[in-house]
């Protein structure tokens, strides 16, 4: 017997591939659900399938999907960012205010300022979470109120109206390319880029490692603090970008802009298959989750069902998504256990 080639052990491979593919098919399942909701609603109300209506579906989901990208990065590390809605409101108002007094300011600068505002708040979130080791739930909940409060001081009861905002800026909100809204294209590019990065780069795999087993991440030499900080920074920056897009879309902004977005984002991300305790989930899933929730929302309107059902249905889906994950992991555990038992009996 040579040292290097010890005899091969009994096969230790277990039949997970089927279950794994089921997990991978999560995005597919959501896509099918979107089509199902869309199809059923169209049967009932043909106007739902009109180009304008579909454009509205995409535009309505775009901002939540964009915020979902950053939120996914954060939740994957077993943290959460609840400040995104307030960041949207503040960055949108600041940019609107700038345009009001500097009407000829370059459009690009508007985006830069919005992203910078978001990045600054994201940096504070990341700093307090990683350096002061305050749970992110508390930090970002506090920031939700602090930022909204600062927003209120700046807004001071005023409203920025469409006349103050350059046409070139609002064009981003309504223009289309081959019938696809710019807004949807921008978000799709961000989702695709982030999705690619989350799969392909070491630093983004670190994020999954941190959320999957924080202690092991430390032992593996992962710079957990830096990575989590970066996740909050990106989440904040994308929320800033979402603020600029919010302004471009609505062409007006007051103190209430973006209120409640944080919970809609978390719901979309979880429905999209990102585990709330970190470690797994994809950016694409989160974006599809946003599209699904928005499609249901609009389907209710198109079917003349009271909008009050909307929240109940979103909540129900959220519970269903979490119950499904739980059921799936129990099933995985059980099937592995019995497979192992069988393996031992061999």
């Amino acid at each position, binding site marked *: 017997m040579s040292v290097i080639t010890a005899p091969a052990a009994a096969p230790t491979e277990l039949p997970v591939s089927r279950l794994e593919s089921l997990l991978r098919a999560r995005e597919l399942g959501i896509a099918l659900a979107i089509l199902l909701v869309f199809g059923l609603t169209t049967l009932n109300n043909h106007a739902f399938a009109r180009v304008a209506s579909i454009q509205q579906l995409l535009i309505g989901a775009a901002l939540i999907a964009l915020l979902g990208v950053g939120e996914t990065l954060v939740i994957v590390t077993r943290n959460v960012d609840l400040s995104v809605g307030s960041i949207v409101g503040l960055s949108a108002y600041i940019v609107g205010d700038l345009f009001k007094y500097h009407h000829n300011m370059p459009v690009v600068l508007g985006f830069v300022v919005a992203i910078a505002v978001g990045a600054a708040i994201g940096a504070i979130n990341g700093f307090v979470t990683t350096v002061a080791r305050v749970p992110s739930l508390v930090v970002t909940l506090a920031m939700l109120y602090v930022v909204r409060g600062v927003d209120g001081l700046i807004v001071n009861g005023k409203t920025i109206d469409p006349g103050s905002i350059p046409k070139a800026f609002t064009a981003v909100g309504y223009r289309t390319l081959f019938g696809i809204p710019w807004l949807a294209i921008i978000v799709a590019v961000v989702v695709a880029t982030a999705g690619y990065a989350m799969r392909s780069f070491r630093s983004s795999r670190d994020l*999954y490692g941190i959320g999957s087993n924080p202690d092991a991440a430390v032992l593996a030499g992962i710079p957990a603090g830096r990575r989590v900080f970066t996740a909050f920074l990106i989440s904040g920056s994308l929320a800033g970008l979402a603020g600029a897009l919010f302004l471009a879309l609505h062409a007006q902004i007051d103190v209430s802009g973006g209120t409640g977005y944080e919970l809609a984002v978390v719901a979309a991300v979880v429905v999209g298959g990102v585990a709330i305790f970190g470690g797994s989930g994809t950016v694409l899933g989160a974006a599809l989750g946003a599209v699904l929730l928005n499609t249901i929302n609009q389907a209710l309107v198109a079917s003349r069902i009271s909008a009050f059902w909307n929240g109940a249905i979103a909540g129900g889906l959220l519970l269903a998504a979490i119950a499904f994950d739980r059921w799936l992991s129990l099933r995985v555990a059980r099937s592995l256990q019995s497979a192992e038992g069988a393996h031992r009996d061999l």
Partner: protein
Amino acid sequence: MARVDDGTSVKGFTFGWGYEVTDQRSAPPVLVLDHATKRFGAVRALEDGSITLYPSEAHALLGENGAGKSTLVKILAGVYGADSGELLIGGEPVTFNGPAASRAAGVSIIYQEPTLFPDLSVAENIFMGRQPLGVGRRIDRAAMNRAATEIFARLGVQLDPARVARGLSVADQQIVEIAKALSFNAQVLVMDEPTAALTTVEVGRLFEVIRTLRAQGAAVLFITHRIEEAFASCQRVTIMRDGSFVRTAPIEEVTVEDIIRSMVGRDLDALFPKTPAAPGEVVLDVEHLCRDGVFYDISFQVRRGEIVALAGLVGAGRTEVARAVFGIDRRTSGTVRVRGEELPNGKPLAAMNAGVALVPEDRRQQGLVMEMSIDQNVALASLGRLRRFGLIRRSRERELATTWATRLQLRFSRMGNTVLTLSGGNQQKVVLGKWLARNPSLLIIDEPTRGIDVGTKAEVHRLLDSLVVDGLAVLMISSELLEVLGMADRVIVLREGRIAADLTRAEADEDSIMRAATGQSPVAAA
């Protein structure tokens, strides 16, 4: 490992167990830890951590639980910084500011507890942070899976590198850990009890890997509870006791008895003050207990005035049986009777009312409320008796706690302090007191002395012995062979969820237990 390639000759290399003669003295040591100390608050985890590792040599580190082995490992790993003492690698003094620094210096660690990422693939677990990169610095998954498969081939195992780590058996998790450590091509490989969960075949394969690594010039530090493994795979042995270095010797100059004496600092009989048992009537009667996928057909009895030990490897189902008896987990079939009365399925409260007490393995998580005071913790399981008009009487609570603190010789400064301030051994006494205050007829105790220093350990053992003499029935789960041999009147050995042997105190010895636990003849020194 390139640092020591001259002067390191590997002579007389054979493939049998034991008997490997390598010429170590001519090479300078690759790693020296000298008089390292480490304290956590009032607890001295390491008093004198000293070890010298030579290239091409496997070095066993032996000692009881709480001897400071794991703390020493964590200092080598860069997880803890030593409070004082010196660490030399290749003759140069180094200080590690984190695990990455230790790894960069060529030290690779296999931890006692698997440190896997359950959501990531097996290959990614191995190469975390060092994934092979392709074009544009993106991870080359195909290359990563290939590299993982190659390491598995070296280990002689088949494991799908692309599957997620979640759901791997404990042994397979350990194999992934070993593969991870090997992937570093380190000059020093530290293995903290890598064999605890492995079967004999897998252990044999691991020893072959150690031999290969040594042939390549690496130094291996091998920590184990199974003394015979030190003889089977190591050239040198260091023994620790109570956080301190005791001695280092070439393996051929010591015997198992020498090692045990050095580990416990006295003879075994003195450590385990066991009064001969006088078993009375049956207290616990378990028949054909089964929990699908976990354990099957477990039948045994525990009588008044005896200690029955559940032994077996990690993952054999010992704790799970205890949990099902107590009703924390539901049983699929079978019956549990306490003093003739059947316990309902899945109702811990019914078990408690029937006079069963369970002292869990993990006292910090499951046994105590760490932030609550000593007296509140002691009273926690007896609150029903301390109430008047639905309110808890503090004076009665304090009274109860004082009674038990005295009986258990608890060492504390103030009753109102949190249990966090107590040492591990005294925390265990608080958990014991909490349950004994209910006056149970059956005590189920899981790992009674895990993480407790040797002195307090003997006290806990003496306490258990006196309780049994007073008529308590005890079902004890222990991973420590010495504890099982020293304390138990009968030993039930579990293997893969079934009873492999039911041994009397006279029949039970290291050999018979290990044989039953592994299902075959244990690895013996040649």
